[in-house]
C-alpha cells in the first residue's frame, strides 16, 4: 500500500486507446468475453421467470424500516 497515492485526474472524455498490439489483445479479449456471456445468457434463459410483464407489475411492496 503506497503511503501517498497520487490520484490520476482524468478528464470528462474517454482516454485514448493503446498501440496496435494492445488493440489486438483487447479485441481477442472482447471475443472471449462475448462467448462467455453467451453461455451465461443461455443458462439464465432457463431460469428467468416467464410472463415478465405480469410478474413485474404484481411485485409491489409495502415500505419498511
Amino acid at each position, binding site marked *: 500500500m503506497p503511503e501517498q497515492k497520487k490520484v490520476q485526474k482524468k478528464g470528462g472524455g474517454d482516454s485514448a486507446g493503446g498501440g496496435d498490439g494492445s488493440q489486438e489483445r483487447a479485441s481477442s479479449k472482447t471475443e472471449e468475453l462475448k462467448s462467455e456471456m453467451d453461455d*451465461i445468457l443461455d443458462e439464465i434463459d432457463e431460469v428467468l421467470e416467464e410472463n415478465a410483464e405480469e410478474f413485474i407489475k404484481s411485485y409491489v411492496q409495502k415500505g419498511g424500516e
Partner: protein
Amino acid sequence: MAIPKVMGIETEYGISSPGTSDFDPVTSSSLLIGSYAGALRKIRWDYEQESPMRDARGFEAVPARGGAEEDGGLANVSLPNGARYYVDHAHPEYSTPECSNARDLVIHDKAGERILERSLRETERFLPQGQRLAIYKNNSDGKGNSYGTHENYLVSRETPFSNLVRDLTPFFVSRQVFTGAGKLGVEGEPEKDSDVVFQLTQRADFFEAEVGLETTLKRPIINTRDEPHADPAKYRRLHVIVGDANMSEVSSFLKVGTTALVLKMIEDDFLPDLALANPVKALHAVSRDIRCRTLVRLDDGRMLSAIELQWEYLTRAAKWSEDHEDDPSNRDILQRWEATLTALEDDPMTLRRQVDWVAKYCLMQGYRERDGLNWGDHKLKMIDLQYHDIRRDKGLYYRLEDGGQMERLVTDAEVDRAMHEPPDDTRAYFRGTVLGRFPEAIAAASWDSLIIDTGVEMLQRIPMREPLKGTRDQVGELLSLATDPAALVRLLQG
C-alpha cells in the same frame, strides 16, 4: 480513541406470492419465520426498558410472563447462531449476530440468505396448492417503495456526533461506486431524471435529508437513532440506513470493511475535512452516473469525483492502519479497496465479477445486445428483480456465481456453519450457545440480555451490556461445565 468495531447487518427482504391476488405479506412473513424457527418461537423478545442502575448490580430477578404469542402473534425469534429473525412491517427481517470483523459479517449475512431459503422450502407444505412465495434480497420494488438494509457499528460515546456527520457523509456519498446493487431507472419525485436508464444503487433515490431520525420518509444520509443495545455511557450504535443489500461478497466486504476503518479514523480525529456543499444532490448524482466520473462540489470549493473522494479516505486509512492497527484483517481491506478504486478509474466494467451493480449492468447489456432489447423492456426489469432472488437455483446472482462469474471471499462450509453457530469473539457467542444448549429454559432474549427460567419462582435476567464480553475464550469453558440452566446461573454468579 478508536474502539473495536463490533458490527452487524439487518436486512428486510422483499416478499411476494407470484400469481396470488390476495397476498398478505405480514402473515406470510410470520409463517416463513415460524416454520423455520419451530420450538424457538416460544422464546419472547425482551423489550424491557434498559435500566443501567439495576443492571450494574449484575443479575436481576424478573417476574414470569407468557411466551412470544403474547406479542401480537408475529414471529420474532432469537436463533442459536446469535441472530434475530422476525417480522418487521410487511417484511421478513434478519439481523446478523454481532461480528468483530468484515469477513465474519459477510459470512453471517450470507447465512441469513440461506436461512430465508430454507424457510421458503419449509413453508411450501403449508401453502395452498399452486401458491408459492418469492423472496428478494433487494431494497426497492421499482415503483417507489423501499425497504431497508441497515448496518450497525459500535462507536465510542466520546466521539461527538457532529464529527460522525461531517466525516461520514462524503464517505457514504462516494462509497456507492462499490456498494451499489444496481437499479433500472429513477424512482420518486421531484427529481425525476428521465434520461437515466440505470443507476448504481437501489437506495439513493429515497434519501432527501442530510441528518435525521426518520427511516421511512424524508430519509436522512446520517440516521440519528440512538439505541446502543449496550452500555449507553460508553457506546453508541451507529445505525446506517443509506446502504444497499448486497449479493456480491466483495461488495458486502468492502461496504462494512471500509466503513469500519473510516469510523476508527473518525474516533481518532484522523480525517481531513471533505464536507460536501450539497450531500443529498451529490448522493443522487453519484448514483446516477455509471461512468463514475461525475464531480461533486466540496464546501471548500474543490470539485472531486466519487473515486477521488474514496482515494482521500483510502490514503488516510493506509496511514492510520500503519500507525495504529497494522493487522492482516486491515491489510486485506486496504488491498481490496485500492484494487477496486484502481479498476473503477480504469473502467468500472472490469469489476463485473466483484461489484453488484456492474455484474447486473453487464448482464443486462448482454441481453440487450443478443436480443436487441430497449432499456424499457420487461425482461430487463425481470433481471433487475431476479438478480436478488435468494434461491440458489433461480436467483441470477447465484447463476453467475455458479458459473464462476462472481469472485468469492468465503466458503459454503463457513456459511453453512454460520446458520447454526455464533461468531466466537463477541457476546453473540454467549447468547447463541446458551440458546442452543438450553432453549427450553430461555424465557426471553434481546441483544443485551437473556432471561433464564431455572425453575424457581423468579426468572433471572443476565445483562450483556458489553458487546465484546461473552466470547468463547471468556465463557466457553464455563458453558461446557454447566449441565443445566440452574448450574449455568450458579456458575455465572460464582
